[in-house]
């Protein structure tokens, strides 16, 4: 019996999305590369188990599981990621410094969220997965996804409102 080839054929199409998600999870190039490699290998290895459906969410589920296992392993081993500069520090100069500042502040607010809330926000608001898909990737009920997202959004909104300069919200309102 030959393996189900659907995953192998379509895997390169999702590489960019996987890489971006890996980078957002690990916030550093080398761990992101390793996580993406592991995810692709695992997907190919278990491609026979992929049934018809959303391949992207299946791949993200694999990546999230691997990342969660890595984090747990590192915590147990007492390891801490010593990565490169954070993405915010790497942001190149832009023709629109006002927007640049807004994006940096928003990224900072997301990265300060508790991990469970950050994950839901990344999958739903950044990657565009539905509540149901997000729930399947994270293996939690849909209600949990919604409540975590609400908590994350509320926290971010409060931070914006509480910021002394209110620069984020003011800038955001000026943007199209």
């Amino acid at each position, binding site marked *: 019996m*030959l*393996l189900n080839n659907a995953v192998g054929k379509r895997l390169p199409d999702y590489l960019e999305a996987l890489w971006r998600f890996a980078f957002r999870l690990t916030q550093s*190039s080398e761990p992101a590369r390793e996580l993406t490699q592991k995810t*692709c290998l695992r997907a190919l290895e278990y*491609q026979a188990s992929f049934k018809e459906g959303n391949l992207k969410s299946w791949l993200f589920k694999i990546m999230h599981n691997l990342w969660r296992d890595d984090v747990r392993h590192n915590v147990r081993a007492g390891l801490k990621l010593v990565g490169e500069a954070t993405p915010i520090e790497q942001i190149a100069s832009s023709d629109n410094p006002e927007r640049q500042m807004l994006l940096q502040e928003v*990224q900072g607010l997301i990265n300060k969220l508790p991990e469970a809330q950050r994950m839901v*926000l990344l999958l739903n608001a950044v990657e565009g997965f539905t509540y149901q898909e997000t729930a399947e990737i994270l293996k939690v009920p849909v209600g949990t996804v919604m409540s975590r997202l*609400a908590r994350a959004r*509320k926290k971010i909104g409060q931070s914006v409102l509480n910021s002394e300069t209110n620069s984020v919200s003011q800038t955001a309102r000026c943007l199209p």
Partner: protein
Amino acid sequence: MTKLTDEEIMAWADGEQSTERGKEIEALIAINPEIAARAASFEASKLPFKSAMDQGVPPVPSELIDQVAQWSQISAGPSAAPVPEDKSGFYWAGVAATVLLLLVATFSGIKYLDSFHPVEKWANAIVSYQNFYVADTISHIESDREAALAKLSNLRQRYPALPASPPDLTAQGYEFKRLQQLDFENKPVLQMVFYKPGRRPLAICLMPDGVDFQDAFTKHELLNSYVWQSNQLRAIVVAEEEPKVLKDIAKLIGV
């Protein structure tokens, strides 16, 4: 007082509530400062999340693109393989390097395949596939020799040149872990993986094939490989071992 959850207010802020429910929420916001404060937070949280998180993400490393394309090719056949379009400077540099390699090989007595040979392409894809596996990847897998024998027996009905069983590599310190069937350009590739503590996994891959080529040892960055041909089979052993060990293992395949 009507109880209003954060999820409902968030949906309202995002314009996802029905008109009727939306009006009810707006009425509550107008008379209830606590609800108004929560609503203001959700309104303020309508931010360009995707654009923000796209900032600073570097492009996919080119070697990762190549690697995934090769893995994909192994398991998915030729349609997934990238087709080189530009035969400019890199092409001629590659030709020159190959000629140089062949000259060195001729004088050193080592046999190499040239990089455009279909067997070399196959071998490189196999090595690339194995390259990322570390001992931890397979150490936990239960060895299932019975399942492997059954699968081999089944495959030998179609490909009689395949061996009847995985080789016994206990003398080399390796334990058989598993047998899997891969696919390379729509041809089956039988992969047997062995585990030895402290070493990268050893893989033997066999593919029914009638292409003539010479045996060749190749030293890669992390692993070494030895390709040989026997009885209408293309074979390769990939491991963190010296040439002599790889050749001895090749003899054990019994094909």
